[in-house]
């Protein structure tokens, strides 16, 4: 695969995931938090795909099991994308509603359920 090693893909995925986590934790704007969540999901997707690709590349001959694991990894990515899309649709709706009722979407202010 053009000489790019697996570790590079995994390192990129790890970096993206860490950026996502830090973003979720430190930011107070829910839209940015969403973006960060997307970043984490995409990091996971990248990891799935690179493992699927390198599974075939490593083995000397193409077996049924290898084919299946490739298909499984790619399928999981499709799943994740679909779920992420749905999640964004619902999440943005919730954010819109909160903003309408409170004129404010700062997550630190949303503490009605504090014990």
């Amino acid at each position, binding site marked *: 695969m053009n000489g790019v090693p697996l570790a590079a893909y995994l390192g990129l995925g790890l970096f993206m995931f860490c950026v996502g986590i830090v973003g979720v934790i430190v930011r*107070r704007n829910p839209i940015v938090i969403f973006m960060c969540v997307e970043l984490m999901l995409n990091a996971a997707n990248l990891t799935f795909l690179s493992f699927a690709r390198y599974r075939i590349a490593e083995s000397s001959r193409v077996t049924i099991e290898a084919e299946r694991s490739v298909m499984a990894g790619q399928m999981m990515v499709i799943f994740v994308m679909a779920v992420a899309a749905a999640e964004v649709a619902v999440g943005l709706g919730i954010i819109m509603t909160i903003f309408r009722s409170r004129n404010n979407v700062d997550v*630190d202010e949303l*503490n009605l*359920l*504090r*014990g």
Partner: protein
Amino acid sequence: MLLLPIAGFLLLALAGSRLEKMLGKRAVGALAVLPIAVAFGITSYLTQQLAGIDAAHRSIVMSGPSWIDIMGLRIPFELLVDPLSMTMSLIITGVGSLIFLYSTGYMGAEREYSRFFTYMNLFAAAMLLLVLGNNLLLLFVGWEGVGLCSYLLIGFWYKDLANAKAANKAFVVNRIGDWGLTLGLLLITALVAGTTRHVPDARYLSYDAILPELKIALERHPDMATLAAFLLFIGAAGKSAQFPLYLWLPDAMAGPTPVSALIHAATMVTSGVVLLNRMHVVFESAPLASTVICGIGAFTALFAALIAFGQTDIKKVLAYSTVSQLGFMFIGCGAGAYWAGIFHVTTHAFFKALLFLGAGAVIHAMSHNQDMRNYGNLKKYMPITFTTMVIGTLAISAIGIPGVFGFAGFYSKEALLGPALGDTNGDMGGVSALALSGQIGLFVAVLTAAYMMRLTWLTFFGKERWRTQPIVAEDHEEGAHEDAQPRLATLDSDPYGFFLSSEPKSVEEHDHALTSDHTPKEVSPSMWLPLVVLAVLSVGGGYVLENNGLLEKWLQPSSAPVTSFVPAEAPSWLPMVSAGAGLLGLVFGLIVANAEKFDLAKWSGLRLWARNQFGFDELMTNFAVQGGSELAVVLDEGVEVGLIDRIVNGSAGVAAWIGKVLSVAQRGLVRSYAVLMLLGGIAILSYMMLGGKH
């Protein structure tokens, strides 16, 4: 026969007050008396039919529909026609109809006339069920039924708190007896069901089916026989007012006088004796229990007779006299003379009903004042009542000339005491407990004659004390009768009860008091007619029934001993001594009555003590009622508040505390949740990666 009083009860209960308005009181009275009078006719007819049958077969079971039918136990509605049930039915319906007739006069001024007769009819029905039922459960139904009616009738003037309390007391004390009876029934059922022999149709409570089996079962388990006998005796003692359960009977005098006569003298209180007769197999198998019964009977007789001297209320004297006479019956039954118990029940029904009704007539004539200290010389004003009361006194005092003729009580008392006195078993350190009881009985016979003489003398002879003497303060007057006198006027003039809705006492205070210019009048015919009939029975009843052992032979099938236990023969000196005891008592009573001090403050300490039932009532009240409520308080404070509440509240408190501690985590800061999630995820992952290797 049983259905008639029930029909009368239902009719009066459902339509009584309407009928009273529509047709007047006469019609209601007639409707009330009619069923029981007709029932008396039917009973007499049945008795004649029964007498025509051969003595060995004088026991007819009339089966009705099944009542309880569960696996292995069948209890049908069934009636037993035998000499015992017929004798009792004759007393109930016969004396009952006389008392009903009397009540129409006595209660004539009463507002809730139909309610009274509703209860009376219900009582008659329940009592008939008690004696006629062929199984112990029907007896129990009747038993509870008469208890209920007794409660309702004692509390008939329920507006007075004292009456309501007396009714409650009667009910509660009776419960103790019922507890014993219930356990006895269960024990008997278990015993019979435990025999291997076949009981027809699994009717484990029916007399005809179980009595033979019971004998075998009890012979096998003598200890069980003693236990069953004691349990049944507790039941009998509760109903028949034996020591220490007699407490309710004197208080029951708060009810109307006809009720006292019917329920608390003639019928209901004798149901214990009926029970003893029915189940005498059990008692014969348990000599120890029988001896105890005899002893308790003797003690009760003595105890109550002594208390009677301390009473000033005419009805209270009769009440204690009833307790005492019931003690006599238990002496007889304990000594094995079961038929004599029924004999005394019969004669006692005659003369005690007579005395109570006579007392009622006196009370009626004296403006409902019951205190004998205010009476005197009433023979001048009430000749019929006087004559009949004297006859009643002679009958209860057991006056008679041996071998020639005697009043009713003479024969029955002799029959009761004979077997006890004749007992020669040295079962108590050489002295026979039964004989000792009999001797106590003889002594009590003297006392009986004495206190009855005192009653008669104070009431009918001497000066007219209500004129000369200021009305003695009624220290514990029943206060029951404020309802009675002026009702008629208000009822007629005021159909909507305008006056009655206001506080009745204020209106009637004047009518109640016995004033010094009061002139007693003889009571109306509907009241003295029963007195005369009962007086005739009190004179001749004993003689006729005793003649050639008539009653003894008649009751033979149901009261003959079934085991080898045979009551002892009466000693030959008994009739002379018994007659002497009666006469001695009369003389003694005369002395007591003439020496009577009317001011309670001048009484000797012993007598005041007797007046207060030797402190027994107080003791029991303190012990049972106050002790009970103190126990309840202790339980409330100690167990309820201290333990149970603490458990409940404590567990809730623990939950709240945990919640408070944990609520720290719910900071409401979304980003901190994210951090926690992250840490949690890391923790799980590291566990899986590191810990999973092991």
